[in-house]
């Protein structure tokens, strides 16, 4: 039943005009930025405006698209009664959540693979475009984490419009507002307090967690500055990698578990 449901969801995703437009947009922007920046700069392994643009593209676009499409998909099921109909079949809430999650993952993996393939082909033509493996890995990780959050947003929302609004709020907080709030607090408190608050925020904000992962896995923790020397040293060790993996898994599992529990509760109420 679950495989059938995943297939059905995946087909619906791919048929969606919105999803098709997202794919075209993402591939175009990704290819354009990689080509323009790489032609302007020689090859290098450091953190430059080009790598920052890649990273920001990853952090801005993937979460935005996944959160909106994923949450509205779930909210639509709940709002239209499709979920109530599905409940009449031998399918548990867990199977529904996992099915939606996997279909969302597969759809966005496909977009990523298309984008990376275009960049690969371009690198063959020009000999200049380079896509570091750490970006590829982090892109997939971003999909894993934000797809789980999208499902949670969809379950919390009462309607499709509510889901859209909620996704945008989550996206804005993760990408922009939390950072601005912390920067503002930094003007009032001492440097060591700002440093500790930043470390807390890195763990509590998935977008920052992914961004931090880039600096650790690309071997460039020095970009974060001497204030974070001990912190980056820890996460550059084997234990740090293990903790990073655990926190990442928690960012995937917790939203899904919470979504399941909320949906169960909602099911009992209706």
């Amino acid at each position: 039943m679950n495989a059938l449901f995943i297939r059905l969801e995946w087909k619906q995703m791919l048929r969606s005009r919105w999803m098709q437009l997202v794919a075209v947009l993402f591939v175009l922007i990704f290819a354009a930025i990689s080509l323009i920046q790489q032609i302007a700069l020689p090859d290098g392994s450091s953190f430059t405006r080009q790598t920052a643009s890649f990273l920001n593209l990853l952090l801005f676009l993937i979460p935005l698209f996944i959160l909106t499409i994923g949450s509205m998909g779930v909210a639509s099921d709940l709002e239209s009664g499709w979920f109530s109909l599905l409940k009449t079949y031998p399918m548990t809430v867990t199977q529904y959540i996992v099915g939606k999650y996997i279909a969302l993952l597969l759809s966005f993996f496909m977009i990523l693979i298309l984008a990376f393939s275009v960049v690969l082909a371009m690198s063959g033509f020009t000999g200049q475009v380079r896509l570091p493996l750490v970006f590829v890995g982090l892109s997939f990780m971003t999909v894993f984490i934000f797809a789980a959050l999208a499902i949670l947003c969809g379950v919390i929302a009462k309607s499709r419009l509510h889901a859209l609004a909620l996704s945008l709020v989550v996206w804005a907080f993760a990408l922009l507002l939390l950072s601005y709030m912390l920067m503002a607090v930094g003007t009032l408190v001492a440097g060591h307090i700002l440093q500790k608050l930043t470390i807390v925020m890195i763990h509590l904000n998935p977008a920052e967690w992914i961004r931090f992962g880039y600096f650790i896995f690309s071997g460039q923790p020095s970009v974060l500055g001497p204030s974070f020397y001990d912190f980056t040293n820890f996460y550059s060790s084997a234990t740090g990698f293990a903790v990073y993996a655990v926190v990442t898994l928690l960012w995937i599992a917790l939203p899904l578990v919470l979504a399941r529990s909320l949906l169960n509760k909602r099911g009992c109420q209706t």
Partner: protein
Amino acid sequence: MVKKWLLLSTLFLLVALPAKAETMDLQQLIDATPAGGELQLQDGIYKGSFRINKPIKVIGSKNTILQGTAKETLLQIENSNDVTLENLQLKTAKTGIAVKKVNHLYMSGLKLTSMYSGVQLNYAEDVEIAETIIQGIDGHYSKKGNGVAAFNSKRLQMNGLQINQVQDGLYIENVSQIELQNNVIRNSRYGIHFMYTENAKAIENKFNKNVTGIMLMMTKNTDLQRNEINEQNGLNGFGVVLFDGQNIDVEGNVFQSNRTAISAQKLQRSTMKENRFQMNQSAVELIRSNAENSVIENDFIGNIVNLRSDGSETTIQHNYYDDYDGIDVDDDGIGDCSYVALQSFGQWMVRQPAYQYFVESPSVVLLNEMDKQTNAIETDQLVDEKPRMMSLQSVEQPQKRNIGKIVIGIAIVLSGLWLWRREAAI
């Protein structure tokens, strides 16, 4: 019986003689050479510690090795004129060569390995060191000495040195008239460390993966020209630090992938001209600078932060910035509106290092865009009123086609589109 003895004697000679030839008393050979004479050394190992205090040429062969112990200086040259050392390998010593009160010293083709520090010059004049390799020991910078250290000396030249894994590649203190050219210094604390030096030139050297490429402190009238300063990108990495210097000309250098390319602190009457700042985290940092300093005709390409300061003044003009978005209607090669490098975030980073975490994060990128609008009216701080529209140099990239990548890339794209179309079909 006689044959047996002959065989044994031959074997003894074959085994024992080379061993005896390998260890020779170099000091006796030096002493036996007349002043102004030339001592040609054969291949072999010369063990001990040696002293030169007369004019002499010591010329080694392909494998002439001088070997000491980790507790003492291997070769001392003192109170002498006209000394030449060529083609020698020096192994294991606390200091490889210690020079004191020597005029006209020439050293070339040396290789110094496994020693705390390489060459020390004290009160030396007219010294040239050329084509020499210095390989330091493993361990923290605090547990090793310098490649070449020069104190209280005059008219020194060092060309073609290759120095790796030492504390400071070239430590120069209280020296006047020194020229450092074509040296390569890697994996050390400071590539060149100038202290209280005057009339120095560092030209066409290469610095790679040091904590700081050139550290210049309390130094006057110095030129740093056409050096390649790359990948000083550790937590405290700097391409060049100019601290409390006067009349320093930094010209025609390439700074790539450094944490901070140039940090100028308390600098006076100095110029940074025609340099290329490429892909650095911060290109130029100006702290307690003054208006007599100038940053002119440089290229700023792909840096996260181009210029930042603590608010002090500097003349900034005619630079090329790849993020300048002005236009040039009169086609004179100069942008029609000013380039304002002032970024709130850049200033915050100077004052509060913990802010560095946010460097080029999505929120800061947006903030910088807003800054561009609000800072457009800035006229005092970090403003280039005449930004160039074109770079001085073009980035040349090799064009290499890779058919494999093209085929794989296109194949995956086509397969992906086919799969999408098939799955989306009803």
